[in-house]
């Protein structure tokens, strides 16, 4: 088919992802994980995976199954495969977290939870990478934003492979020396490829296209964008190839490749931020919408996170301070960007789902009529201010203050989620413009049956 239809399972991914975010924030308020526990404590690792896999990766997968087809103007290769992947990912994540709780001393029986979790997560991501990869392959030659996504998916495969090796070692499925060495010293590679290569690099690629579309900015390909891609790709390949080589063949630590990758990533991010500033400057949509305004704040979080990472590396305080840096990248940058974009994407997809077939035949609302930006905006500010407060509390090693700030994040996120549900149920749309007749009301997170009949 030429053109792109609505992705059937994107809302299901978004729903599970938001539940994982709310769950993670509740745990932080309860004092579970960093900074109450050490950075490498099982509690912290469980929390990190709930955020990284449950929230950020599911959000990213849900967005990619809808927007990779938009990036390359091809339909998704297998429209229903994402639901199988989602079930595997959720079951895998729950097992993985139970496994970490087991390591933390909670008795959960003798089942090898970590190993089973890794199998579920690896299988789920593999199905999504296969689906997205086939879609991208069928659209060759692909544009620059889609190439960012390809490198992001490559990083995801590496992250999942490393994670599976770690799990197999921890549950005793392997005693291979090489795999054990990777497990004991490869964690920085796993984290950098996950947070940087997969989540950040993919978000950069998608935002080149989405921000331009939403703000009506010209999409000409600039030299800075190509350099951002090249330096970022080089950073990923160094983590992917030079890192394991240093560790396994040269018998050294991964410190040097990590440092070189950080340098290249900093160049890539600086060029990217410059490109984003140009998009904002040259936009033709004068009125800046909530999603674009809050995405700019999230970009500030990316800049701050990168700066702090350089600072703690330069002063040799990575072991003590890395938790705060990861926190600001995960919550200031990726979560901030994710919530801001969700506010636009959910409204647009709901509008298309409810009114696509009615356009031109009767009076229909605009996409803006589905949202109430003045009502939601203060909660975004509460969210970002709470992140800054939580960062300060974590840096000052004040766990109680951190939990209070986390409560601010939780309240703000819960209200934003409530507003997203209101968008799904068309609560802001005047009664006279509600869809009737051949269009059923939207379902919160499952596709309607007629999607399958087409």
């Amino acid at each position, binding site marked *: *088919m*030429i*053109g792109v*239809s609505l992705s059937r399972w994107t809302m299901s991914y978004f729903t599970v992802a938001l539940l994982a975010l709310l769950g993670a924030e509740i745990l932080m308020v309860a004092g579970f994980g960093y900074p109450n526990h050490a950075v490498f404590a099982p509690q912290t690792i469980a929390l990190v995976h709930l955020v990284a896999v449950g929230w950020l990766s599911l959000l990213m997968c849900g967005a990619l199954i809808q927007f990779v087809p938009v990036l390359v103007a091809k339909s998704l290769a297998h429209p229903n495969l994402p639901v199988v992947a989602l079930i595997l990912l959720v079951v895998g994540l729950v097992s993985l977290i139970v496994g970490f709780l087991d390591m933390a001393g909670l008795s959960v029986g003798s089942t090898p939870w970590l190993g089973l979790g890794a199998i579920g997560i690896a299988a789920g991501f593999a199905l999504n990478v296969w689906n997205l990869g086939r879609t991208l392959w069928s659209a060759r030659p692909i544009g620059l934003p889609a190439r960012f996504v390809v490198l992001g998916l490559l990083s995801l495969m590496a992250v999942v492979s490393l994670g599976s090796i770690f799990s197999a070692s921890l549950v005793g499925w392997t005693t291979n020396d090489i795999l054990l060495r990777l497990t004991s010293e490869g964690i920085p590679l796993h984290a950098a490829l996950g947070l940087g290569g997969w989540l950040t690099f993919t978000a950069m690629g998608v935002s080149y296209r989405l921000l331009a*579309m939403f703000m009506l900015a010209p999409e000409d390909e600039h030299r800075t964008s190509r350099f951002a891609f090249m330096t970022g790709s080089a950073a990923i390949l160094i983590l992917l190839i030079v890192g394991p080589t240093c560790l396994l063949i040269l018998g050294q630590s991964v410190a040097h490749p990590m440092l070189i990758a950080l340098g290249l990533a900093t160049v890539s991010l600086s060029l990217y931020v410059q490109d984003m500033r140009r998009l904002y400057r040259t936009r033709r*949509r004068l009125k800046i919408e909530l999603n674009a305004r809050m995405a700019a704040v999230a970009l500030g979080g990316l800049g701050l996170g990168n700066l702090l990472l350089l600072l703690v590396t330069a002063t040799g305080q990575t072991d003590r301070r890395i938790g705060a840096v990861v926190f600001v990248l995960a919550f200031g940058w990726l979560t901030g960007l994710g919530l801001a974009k969700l506010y636009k994407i959910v409204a*647009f997809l709901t509008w298309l789902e409810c009114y696509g077939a009615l356009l*031109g035949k009767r009076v229909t609302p*605009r996409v803006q009529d589905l949202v109430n930006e003045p009502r939601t905006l203060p909660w975004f500010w509460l969210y970002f201010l709470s992140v800054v407060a939580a960062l300060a509390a974590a840096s000052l090693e004040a766990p109680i203050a951190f939990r209070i700030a986390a409560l601010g994040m939780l309240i703000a996120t819960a209200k934003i989620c409530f507003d997203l549900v209101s968008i799904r149920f068309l609560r802001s749309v005047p009664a006279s413009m509600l869809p009737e007749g051949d269009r059923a009301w939207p379902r919160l997170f499952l596709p309607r049956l007629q999607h399958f009949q087409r």
Partner: protein
Amino acid sequence: MTHAPYELDVRPILRAGGEPFKEIMEAVGGLASGQGLRLLATFQPVPLFTVLARKGFSHAAREIGDGDWEVIFTPAAPTVALSPSETDYPAEPGHPASVWPEPARHLDNRDLDPPEPMVRTLAAAEELQPGEVLSALLCREPLFLLPELKNRGYEWQGNFQDDKTTYKLLLRKPAKNEAAE
């Protein structure tokens, strides 16, 4: 020979509570052949788009700050349908583009906020008589519009123009006997 667009600022009339429709139509009546109209208003004058489209004008509207709008109406040059080799989608067998009639309407949706181009195109498509053709200029490939056109039984063809940034879409409402088939 091309003329610079005639400029008409109706903001003072609107701010004074007046109705500038008469002034606008007089200005349109006074345009030289091929001359456009640059209109400045305090809102997006949507009803005017339809009125002037019937007179063969396409429009490009943009917000210029403080809620004011600039709309440039351009008289449509006579256009011919794209030849099949120019398109990325062939016309239906038996109804090649070369036998499609001249477009009955032209839309310039390039400067509209998404998804407004999709809304306008579908609204105009619904107003076509059976067998009539609509031409629309867009600033990107209308990926979400195309499946909807197919669902509604329209034939369409489109491609990027030489400037690589304008996507030209032609769509045709099926004639009554075709729709019945």
